[in-house]
């Protein structure tokens, strides 16, 4: 009988199954009696059947549980106790347009309560989560009493996107105000705090996109009501990138709430949404909390007509709307504000009308330029001072003001550019200084041409463009570059000089490739000129070489600089300073590519030339001392390094005074040498000095501050003050991102360091997204062979190895190794580092032969470079011991274990 699960001979077998099957056809209540009857006096058979029946009706049988389940209960909600990612649902808090909000408990890596917003289906979850991840770092940097940010995003088991948000226990703004019958003044005070929170976010580059009273909760802290704006980071993640019009949310509308949306947001042009869109929403917010109704309430609210109306921009004023309301409605609004209808109308008329109108202006250039400005105007109103916003008739004057400011801006920008050029000239070489000065010394006509050119370039750009200074400046330069080609064909020399200016500014903005492109064209044209002055060509080559070096193209840079050097040496004794400058560049390049002996030779010669001048330029001498100090540091000769840096510092103090940017640079560098010597206290003090001087001389947001901040971060990191370290590194990143943009090479360097800290402090989950972002940015921005890219790849490779993703890790480190082998001299210790990590990875993959080759290679490098007792040498020995152990070559294992322990 094929249906029976046994083959052993059993006289009762067929009967057993027959009775069993029949029994299951019998009502359960009568079953036992029926079985007893059917078995007659065969008690053993009856027992076996009862057993079978018991197993069959077992309640927790796997077959009764389908392998997949619906995560939502019949009510469409998660049940309390259910897990969503690392969160456990505690309670359903409410439903919103986009989904449900739950009180939940985060279980790891920290335990805390969060608000979990689970979005309905209808969006591409992966995209939502990816968009959130892109903003994650910026969100993590926000910290303000009036805002609550999204902490995490992910997908539920069935793929619904969710956001975990800082839990705010409070009531919506309007509900709170109405139930406490807050007066207009009290409401304004709370609203002002909302503006402050929003401003903080705007400063970090985060636009909310869905500001409205229900997204501002009022909490009580020690009896004081505090508004908190929630959902930061949510709307942006929910909004499709590129602003595809027609991408709808499940609620049937665009992300954001139509009533509060700015006209540009409603039109759905992604690139057009900036902080001023939030200002508009704040205006609607303010309108509503003042009057109790929405601005467009009196008209049809069909989305098409709202869209048309808002574009026209004729929002009714608050007081006018109040007079349009039914008397009973207006009286109710007044009652909720503890006042009378007439008083309320009077209170709103004038200043508050104007403030709302200015915030809600259809043209965003007429709105408040920042949320802080709006808050300040509210403050002025509360203090009975005249407000910035004026009646519509004042728009004319306002426009004038803007125009005046624009001109002022243009002038300031020109001055800024020239200063920049001069500054670079000082920093990079005397040659640049000559060029820059010669621009100033050009005959009048030319000077005017330059000025006109710059002013016109700046005028065509929109100074209030949303994307920060970098993009605007870039636009200016791109336009300027095109204009040079068109407009200055008849002035070849002037044209070349302007191209030099443009190249320099591109370089300063971190747009190395554009800068190199211009410099290459300059060199080309100079080579073509029949009357070519070899010294001019030398100068151009020098500039190109310096830029190539900066962008990490060490090979080409070396070649170009050597040609520049040869040309300048032909120029004879008059060119000593220029020769020194090129020697200095070449030496610095050798230093950076790890060719220390060559660097020593070149830098020392540069220093000698500079010192033996009849009238030495102390700034340049200090620069040489500085780089020689850096060289000694790289050689590990710490005392000598500190000595050079101390001399540089003294020279600069004597030359420029105690408070000067270059003095800060020397303090910072001396700090690094002392830091390495273990004199952390002195080092920290020098870093702080550098920080203070730069802050004072260059302003609190200058990118230079990032260096001491990073150094302090590293210093604290080495002392295991991880939190402090991460705070400093975060400040460094923030400064760079604001000053230079996220993708500037210098910013990338700092972000890179931060990623490394996260990784090394074991915060792998935080480190991973950061490292991927950095890698993507570095691939975009840096040349393929850049050492920093290699370093990121090494870190990622290491991280992937930790994650057990060996082959991904291998791929990453292998790419790094290839870069290092082609970019660095043979036997460079960074090649060893990559080999060490790759070798260890291969051991994990049991690819022993390949692993052995790599580990032996890196061991040789480490021993040659650091000596056999260095930590890296021992680490490589240790990994070799591990390798041989896993391979079963135990003698070798013993040998290497011995070497590992010294």
């Amino acid at each position: 009988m094929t249906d029976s699960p046994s083959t052993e001979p059993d006289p009762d077998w067929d009967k057993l199954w027959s009775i069993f099957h029949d029994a299951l056809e019998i009502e359960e209540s009568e079953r036992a009696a029926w079985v007893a009857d059917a078995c007659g006096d065969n008690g053993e058979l009856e027992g076996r059947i009862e057993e079978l029946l018991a197993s069959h009706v077992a309640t927790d049988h796997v077959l009764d549980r389908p392998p997949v389940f619906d995560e939502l209960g019949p009510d469409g909600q998660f049940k309390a106790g259910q897990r969503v990612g690392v969160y456990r649902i505690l309670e359903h808090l409410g439903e919103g347009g986009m989904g449900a909000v739950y009180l939940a408990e985060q279980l790891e890596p920290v335990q805390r309560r969060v608000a979990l917003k689970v979005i309905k289906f209808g969006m591409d979850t992966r995209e939502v989560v990816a968009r959130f991840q892109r903003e994650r770092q910026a969100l993590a940097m926000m910290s303000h009493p009036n805002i609550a940010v999204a902490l995490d995003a992910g997908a539920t088991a069935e793929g619904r996107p969710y956001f975990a948000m800082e839990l705010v226990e409070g009531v919506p703004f309007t509900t709170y105000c109405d139930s406490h019958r807050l007066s207009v003044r009290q409401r304004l005070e709370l609203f002002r705090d909302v503006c402050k929170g929003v401003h903080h976010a705007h400063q970090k580059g985060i636009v909310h996109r869905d500001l409205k009273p229900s997204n501002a909760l009022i909490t009580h802290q020690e009896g004081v009501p505090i508004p908190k704006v929630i959902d930061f980071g949510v709307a942006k993640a929910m909004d499709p990138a590129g602003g595809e019009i027609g991408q709808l949310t499940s609620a049937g509308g665009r992300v954001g709430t139509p009533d509060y949306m700015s006209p540009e947001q409603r039109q759905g042009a992604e690139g057009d949404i900036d902080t001023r869109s939030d200002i508009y929403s704040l205006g609607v917010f303010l309108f509503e909390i003042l009057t109790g109704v929405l601005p467009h309430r009196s008209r049809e609210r069909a989305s098409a007509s709202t869209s048309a109306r808002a574009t026209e921009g004729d929002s009714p004023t608050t007081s006018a709307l109040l007079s349009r309301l039914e008397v009973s409605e207006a009286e109710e609004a007044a009652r909720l504000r503890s006042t009378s209808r007439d008083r309320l109308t009077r209170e709103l008329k004038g200043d508050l009308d104007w403030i709302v109108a200015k915030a809600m202006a259809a043209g965003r250039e007429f709105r408040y330029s920042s949320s802080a400005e709006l808050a300040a105007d509210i403050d002025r109103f509360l203090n009975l001072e005249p407000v910035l916003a004026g009646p519509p008739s004042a728009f004319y004057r306002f426009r004038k003001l803007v125009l005046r400011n624009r001109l002022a801006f243009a002038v300031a920008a020109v001055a800024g550019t020239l200063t920049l050029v001069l500054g670079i000239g000082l920093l990079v070489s005397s040659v640049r200084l000559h060029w820059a000065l010669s621009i100033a010394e050009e005959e009048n006509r030319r000077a005017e041409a330059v000025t006109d050119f710059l002013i016109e370039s700046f005028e065509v750009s929109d100074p209030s463009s949303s994307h920060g200074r970098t993009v605007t400046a870039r636009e200016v330069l791109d336009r300027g570059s095109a204009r040079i080609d068109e407009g200055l064909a008849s002035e070849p020399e002037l044209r070349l000089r302007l191209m030099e200016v443009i190249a320099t500014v591109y370089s300063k903005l971190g747009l190395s490739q554009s800068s190199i492109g211009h410099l290459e064209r300059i060199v080309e044209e100079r080579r073509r000129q029949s009357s070519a002055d070899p010294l001019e060509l030398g100068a151009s080559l020098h500039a190109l070489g310096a830029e190539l070096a900066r962008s990490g193209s060490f090979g080409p840079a070396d070649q170009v600089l050597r040609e520049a050097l040869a040309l300048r040496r032909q120029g004879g004794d008059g060119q000593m300073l220029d020769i020194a400058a090129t020697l200095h560049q070449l030496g610095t390049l050798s230093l950076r590519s790890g060719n220390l002996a060559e660097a020593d030779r070149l830098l020392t010669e540069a220093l000698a030339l500079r010192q033996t001048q009849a009238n030495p330029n102390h700034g340049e001498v200090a620069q040489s001392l500085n780089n020689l100090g850096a060289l000694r540091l790289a050689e590990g000769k710490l005392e000598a390094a500190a000595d050079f840096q101390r001399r540089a510092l003294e020279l600069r103090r004597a030359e420029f005074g105690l408070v000067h940017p270059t003095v800060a640079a020397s303090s910072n560098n001396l700090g690094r040498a002392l830091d390495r010597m273990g004199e952390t206290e002195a080092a920290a003090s020098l870093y702080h000095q550098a920080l203070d001087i730069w802050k004072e001389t260059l302003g609190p947001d200058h990118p230079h501050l990032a260096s001491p901040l990073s150094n302090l971060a590293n210093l604290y990191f080495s002392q295991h003050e991880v939190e402090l370290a991460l705070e400093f590194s975060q400040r460094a990143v923030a400064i760079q991102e604001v000053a230079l943009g996220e993708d500037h090479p210098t910013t990338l360097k700092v972000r890179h360091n931060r990623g490394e800290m996260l990784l090394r402090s074991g915060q792998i989950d935080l480190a991973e997204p950061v490292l991927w972002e950095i890698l993507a940015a570095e691939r975009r921005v840096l040349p393929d062979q850049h050492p920093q890219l290699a370093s990121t790849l090494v870190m990622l490779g290491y991280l992937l190895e930790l994650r057990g993703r060996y082959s991904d890790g291998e791929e990453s480190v292998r790419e790094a190794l290839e870069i290092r082998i082609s970019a660095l001299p043979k036997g460079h210790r960074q090649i060893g580092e990559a080999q060490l990590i790759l070798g260890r990875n291969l051991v994990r993959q049991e690819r022993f032969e390949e692993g052995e080759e790599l580990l032996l290679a890196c061991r040789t490098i480490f021993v040659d470079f650091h000596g056999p007792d260095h930590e890296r040498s021992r680490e490589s020995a240790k990994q070799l011991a591990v390798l041989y152990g896993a391979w079963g070559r135990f003698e070798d294992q013993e040998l290497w274990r011995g070497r590992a322990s010294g």
Partner: protein
Amino acid sequence: MGRGRQIRSLGERPEAGEITGLLQDWAEGNEETHTQLMELIYGELCRLASSRLRQERSDHTLQTSALVHEAYLRLLGQKQVSWQDRGHFFAMAARMMRRILVNHARDRVCAKRGGGVEHLPLEESVCLPMDRPEECIAVDEALGALAAVHPQQAKVVELRYFGGLNRDEIGESLGLSRPTIARRLRVARIWLYRYLHGES
């Protein structure tokens, strides 16, 4: 089996009617079409599972039977199909559903063992809500053991548990009567219970 055959990618839809021809080919003894059929059905099931998860629907359910039936409708349409073809289809769909579920369960278990917080569980091509992936794997293994002694019973469980098919559909697939199916399910049920609870 057609090893060298180009396997359709998951996103690519089979042409309407194609599968009927394949089913007939196969029924006529062309073994090569078997792999092709399997891949077709596998791809369609994966696609359906993912797309269902992306749609918003308040009555949203994700039961394996619903997936199998939807795949049937999509691949075979409203065409008149012989009951043998229908049965073959269900049998293959259940087998593919099993493959999908068990693969997914394994991924889930691996991810759990890998430790750490999983931020993006969406990297897999199919994302299925699974409460107890370990259990799904255990059933799969138990079915393997059962198939070694009683392949017919294992087949019934596969259709029921992984394919989510009802008794009539199982009967159609295996060409057996309803009472026979019921009996086989009962015995398999006991066998599985004992196997999974460590009894002989």
